[in-house]
């Protein structure tokens, strides 16, 4: 394990729909949520491509006018295969194009400056991360490298590693990947239970934009022990929106006999309306969605009641309760032993979810006192401060987290031989004995899997290694397999033949589907390219504005007083025609180089020199850089 990280650090909650960043404030003994350039405390996880690249609020705001190049939900793609059944349905709903790349990795197709580009989900996430980094840097007023990034507790190994890669591409030193509900527990512990030393069993219910997690955490004497965790990496607010969109597409079809499902722009507008309506239904009993000229000039006007919304999502809400029960079962804890039920994530505001949860726990005091949108980033910032040497005053707590999925080896008949069962505290070292299945078997292969299915092939393959030089003995020869899982989720597996002392193993870092270091390097370069392009675009806008401004001022000046003493009418006409040409240049789209506008401005300035010298000096004093 590395030494403490130099320099200050931030915590980033990289969400499916919104992201949030926080930093530890030593002088106040708490973490501070950092507002973005729009004054918002959360930033939409959106990236859009036009003649420029937009990230965050700017990208979401233009989503309806540019649906096929506005990317969101990258977190649903990260670390998954294109063929993953979990995203099959999403592929149909997303207005942007996703294709299958090398190793069945999903690639997002976008049109950037008229050219087609294929981007991995890691790259989209890295753009959001770099935006969050910029937001923090602007607020803290120094450059940052260190960060703790959160992931859903139920993310598997490849999803975690892909998230870490995204951090690296964004130019961050990812000190650790921590689980979202665990981060929320840290925030809760610090904000609400700082002065409490007796034992609290805290149930974290984290229903976010795209993922659902529950964790049971025991807090005592500053030790945060995660007892069990469960979840669904594909269940959240987006799914509730989807249900509503589908419902309204049907309704619209019935009423107007037109199908809007093929029109990405109409779907995006409807989706935005649904998201808004969903939020309203958390406090109102019914609401009306109105969208002018949604499709073929037909206005959209439908109302929806809270009961209808609940009915549309009933099975999803019930699934949340089932998963909660599984978590309690795994923790071997009764409902009544739980002291606090803490709500985290935007979708935990849904009244039906709350009432189901109240019924489930047979109590009416759910904890809503921490901000559900910010708790995760807050907790990540606490963890970041604990891992960085730049802070002298940090909370005295330690976190003992668990592995959400079982780890093991495929044995004879493709059975999953579990070595580290799920919900085992990490870091951990465990071993299991496996036997050869054939007589005189010279080598044995060890495919390492992660997951809960009994059939190993249905789990997530992490890697494969072999142990050779086995003695020529009948089958049933024992081999000891040692699994070592460290804090960053890096798994080392080795097998030892104790009779001969032969040993072989792997460190699982680079399985199939994950980015190679060459790819990461390419993506870092690409990120630099995008940054450069963004800079160029900004420069061009500035140059355009400067030219526009100059023409406007000079025109006004020429009208304002008599210039005939300095200019003949023909000279005046030439200048005026140059101004007109400049205006045309500004309006046309053909030039996108800052230099074109800068040079033109210089030419104009030179031409107008004679008339400027005396009278108009005060108009053109300003530097036009």
């Amino acid at each position, binding site marked *: *394990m590395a030494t*403490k990280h130099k320099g200050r650090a931030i915590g980033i909650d990289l969400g499916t729909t919104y992201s949030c960043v926080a930093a530890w404030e030593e002088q106040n003994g708490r973490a501070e949520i950092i507002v973005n350039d729009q004054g918002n405390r959360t930033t939409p996880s959106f990236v859009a491509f036009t003649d420029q690249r937009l990230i965050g609020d700017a990208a979401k705001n233009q989503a309806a006018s540019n649906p096929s190049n506005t990317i969101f939900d990258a977190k649903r793609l990260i670390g998954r295969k294109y063929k993953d059944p979990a995203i099959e349905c999403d592929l149909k709903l997303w207005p942007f194009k996703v294709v299958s790349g090398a190793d069945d990795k999903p690639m997002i197709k976008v049109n950037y400056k008229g050219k087609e580009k294929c981007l991995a989900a890691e790259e989209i996430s890295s753009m959001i991360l770099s935006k969050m980094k910029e937001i923090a840097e602007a607020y803290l007023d120094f450059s940052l490298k260190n960060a703790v990034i959160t992931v859903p507790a139920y993310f598997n190994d490849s999803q975690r590693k892909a998230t870490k890669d995204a951090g690296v591409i964004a130019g961050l030193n990812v000190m650790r990947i921590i689980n979202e509900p665990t981060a929320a527990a840290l925030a809760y512990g610090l904000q609400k239970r700082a002065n409490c030393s007796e034992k609290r069993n805290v149930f974290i219910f984290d229903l976010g934009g795209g993922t659902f997690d529950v964790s049971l955490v025991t807090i005592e004497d500053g030790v945060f022990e995660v007892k069990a965790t469960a979840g669904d990496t594909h269940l959240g607010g987006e799914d509730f929106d989807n249900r509503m969109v589908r419902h309204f597409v049907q309704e619209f079809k019935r009423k107007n006999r037109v199908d809007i499902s093929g029109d990405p722009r109409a779907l995006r507008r409807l989706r935005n309306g649904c998201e808004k309506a969903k939020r309203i239904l958390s406090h109102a009993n019914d609401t009306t969605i109105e969208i002018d000229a949604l499709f073929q000039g037909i206005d959209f006007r439908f109302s929806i009641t809270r009961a209808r919304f609940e009915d549309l999502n009933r099975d999803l809400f019930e699934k949340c309760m089932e998963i909660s029960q599984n978590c309690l079962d795994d923790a071997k804890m009764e409902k009544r032993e739980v002291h606090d039920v803490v709500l985290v994530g935007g979708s935990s505001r849904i009244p039906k979810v709350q009432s189901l949860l109240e019924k489930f726990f047979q109590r009416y005091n759910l904890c809503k006192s921490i901000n559900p949108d910010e708790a995760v980033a807050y907790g990540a910032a606490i963890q970041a401060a604990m891992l960085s040497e730049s802070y002298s005053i940090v909370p005295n707590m*330690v976190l*003992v987290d668990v592995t959400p999925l079982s780890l093991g080896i495929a044995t004879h008949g493709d059975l999953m031989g579990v070595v580290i069962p799920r919900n085992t505290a990490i870091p951990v*070292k465990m071993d299991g004995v496996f036997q050869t299945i054939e007589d005189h078997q010279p080598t044995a292969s060890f495919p390492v899997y992660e997951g809960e299915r009994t059939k190993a092939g249905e789990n997530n393959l992490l890697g494969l290694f072999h142990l050779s030089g086995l003695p020529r003995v009948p089958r049933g020869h024992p081999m000891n397999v040692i699994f070592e899982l460290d804090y960053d989720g890096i798994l080392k597996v080795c097998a030892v033949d104790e009779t001969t002392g032969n040993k072989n193993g792997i460190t699982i870092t680079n399985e199939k589907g994950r980015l190679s270091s060459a790819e990461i390097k390419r993506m870092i370069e690409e990120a630099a390219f995008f940054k450069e392009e963004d800079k160029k675009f900004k420069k061009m806008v500035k140059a355009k504005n400067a030219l526009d401004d100059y023409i406007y001022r000079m025109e006004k000046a020429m009208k304002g007083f008599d210039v005939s003493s300095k200019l003949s009418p023909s000279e005046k006409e030439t200048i005026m025609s140059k101004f007109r040409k400049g205006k045309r240049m500004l309006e046309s789209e053909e030039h996108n180089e800052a230099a074109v506008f800068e040079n033109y401005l210089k030419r104009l300035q030179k031409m107008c020199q004679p008339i400027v010298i005396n009278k108009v000096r005060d108009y053109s004093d300003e530097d036009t850089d």
Partner: protein
Amino acid sequence: SEDEVVRLLNCSDHYSALGFTRYQNIDVSVLKREYRKKAMLVHPDKNMGNEKAAEAFKKLQNAYEILMDSLKRKAYDDELRREELLGVFRRFHNDSQKNGRHGFFGS
């Protein structure tokens, strides 16, 4: 905490890792308290840069998990007793060889 790391790494069984004597009847709340106290000391986050702390923590965690679970603990106790017996036998065996006499089963 440095000392605690070294102490843990030198422990021969799960009981001593948590500061108990072998086969001692342990109250769960006491066990938990001892675990928390030691976890605070040797937790890798509190000992950044010390490779051994992670090792020690794994040992502590393992010991805690086995002693917490009555079934696992029983299996562990059996194992320990068997090893003890084996140890006694080996010592006896070695001693008798040194003394030039025959062992139990006449080697």
